[in-house]
């Protein structure tokens, strides 16, 4: 790590650390990762083992978050569901980041007609109500977890493309790019070795926010009956299965909803913290 990089990280970290909300959010996210990766060791129950003698039992010392309509432990399903919901969030955002970054890099670096065509494509895609688009495509295919991740990714890259392009437009004019060109570096090398690393910081923020958005989208799809298909637990479908029992089994609806809210909120707060810490205007 060069001196400049070390310095930048320390400035970033010093600023980020001051933001208490972002720190709390970060701590919650880390805890969630630990919980979901240790899932089998933490809970005595299996996520899909039925217990028809204990159907819809309220929270107790045996079942902290109660049981569902098939006698499955709700807490266990939420912990296992975290794996699924986080996986959906990360892979969907990963896909969006790759598409958005490549399009943004190419458009910003080449400018001219390549830029115009690509950016008009972005303008067009951004007009679509993406939720409706996702809904249409998923019902025409089938609501598998894979389809859901891919389609959320394919409909949410436009913001990233615009961010990266704007960043590239200013980076392109810097002296070190000129220097790289002067010594005969190829376009792909300049783009990926010199432009890309310097254009990534705004992407970081939108990736964080994107994970939150994808988790919400998956849960909304589940609510409409076309999310991650049961019996695989996702926060969305646990919540949805509880909807019919709301009147006499509130725990089935309350806890997964809280899990979604707290997680999404944590991602937003971390995203905001990163944005503030990266913002050079706050230096003054």
């Amino acid at each position, binding site marked *: 790590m060069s001196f400049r990089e070390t310095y930048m990280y320390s400035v970033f970290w010093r600023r980020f650390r001051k933001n208490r*909300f972002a720190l709390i959010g970060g701590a919650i996210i880390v805890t969630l990762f630990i919980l979901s990766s240790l899932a089998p060791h933490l809970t005595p129950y299996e996520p899909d083992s039925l217990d028809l003698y204990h159907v819809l039992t309220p929270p107790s010392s045996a079942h902290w978050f109660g049981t569902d309509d098939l006698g499955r432990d709700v807490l266990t399903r939420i912990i296992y569901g975290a794996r699924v919901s986080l996986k959906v969030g990360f892979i969907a955002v990963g896909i969006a980041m790759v598409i958005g970054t490549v399009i943004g890099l190419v458009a910003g670096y080449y400018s001219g007609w390549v830029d115009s065509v690509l950016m*008009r494509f972005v303008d*067009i895609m951004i007009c679509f109500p993406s*939720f*409706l688009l996702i*809904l249409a495509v998923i019902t025409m295919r089938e609501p598998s977890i894979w389809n859901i991740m891919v389609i959320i990714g394919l409909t949410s890259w436009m913001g990233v493309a615009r961010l990266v392009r704007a960043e590239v437009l200013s980076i392109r004019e810097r002296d070190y790019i000129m220097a790289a060109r002067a010594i005969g570096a190829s376009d792909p090398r300049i783009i990926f070795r010199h432009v890309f690393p310097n254009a990534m910081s705004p992407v970081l923020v939108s990736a964080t926010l994107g994970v939150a958005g994808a988790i919400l989208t998956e849960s909304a799809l589940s609510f*409409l009956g076309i999310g991650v298909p049961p019996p695989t637990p996702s926060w969305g479908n646990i919540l949805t299965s509880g909807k019919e029992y709301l009147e006499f089994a509130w725990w089935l*609806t309350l806890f997964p909803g809280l899990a979604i809210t707290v997680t999404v909120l944590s991602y*937003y707060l971390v995203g905001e913290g990163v944005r503030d810490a990266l913002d050079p205007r706050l230096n003054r």
Partner: protein
Amino acid sequence: MANYLLKRLIMMVPLLLGITIITFAVVHLTPGEPVEMQVAMNPRVTAEARERLRKFYGLDQPLHVQYLKWVGRLAKLDFGRSFAPDGRPVVDKIKERIPVTLSINIIALLLEFGLAIPIGVVAAIRRDTPLDKGMTVFVFLGFSIPTFWLALLLMYLFGVKLGWLPISGLHSFGSGGFGFLRQLCDMAWHLILPLSVATFGSLAAVSRYMRSSMLEVVSQDYITTARAKGLSERTVILKHALRNALLPVVTLLGFSVPGLIGGSVIMETIFSIPGMGQLAYGGVMARDYPLVMGILVIGAGLTLVGNLLSDILYAFADPRIRLGKG
């Protein structure tokens, strides 16, 4: 100004064409045909009948021919006939649903901007105080809560448990006989829950944008000048800062359209509101291709119009935009 307008209008043509191409591609390049759906239910349908159905819907022609025919009809505002058993024109179906969705969303937008702008301004003025932090968490909480979940909880609490508010539809049973004013009140009463949920969920974007826009303006030299010449803080904020900070926020109007349409699908499904969202959901579930395509095109077109309107508003208010090369 006229020049700017003309340029913007011409720019819309390729974008609209692009919207139709994407819509067509999304629906036609995914496997599974509408005919399959109708045929699968009935094992006695022969291959011949299937072909007849395909021909009837024009599905036997090559894709580009289908596309050109479809766009040609779109230009005359003919969206084709719904695949639903009633077989009514898609335009009619959408036309009768649009007023409900549009008016609910306009009220929601007014509430959203009306609440979010003051929140953003106050958060900026009281930057880094507990008030600012509290409001930040409040608006993000609204953003993070799954709307359908909040709706369910509120419906349960206020509708079922307390019995204060109606939980579905737009009218009370037998309200047809009421006078106009009473009908309006009845509708407002039915809209309390959906509108509160929608507004709470959408405060974050505008209020955060307003806050950062305000912070940026307040650090400008002319604000320092205004303060230096002894104007009251109230005048400085309301007259000098707020006016300038409000400008960029206007552009958010156009951007919020796609989200509103997506949100309508969920809200209208939960609260059984007979609007476009509900129509879209039903259409998607029944694989009613002409209907889904029509709604996608109209939804994206509305966004285009929303963007145009907010840009015009912006250009109208800020001469730097229309005189620049934008």
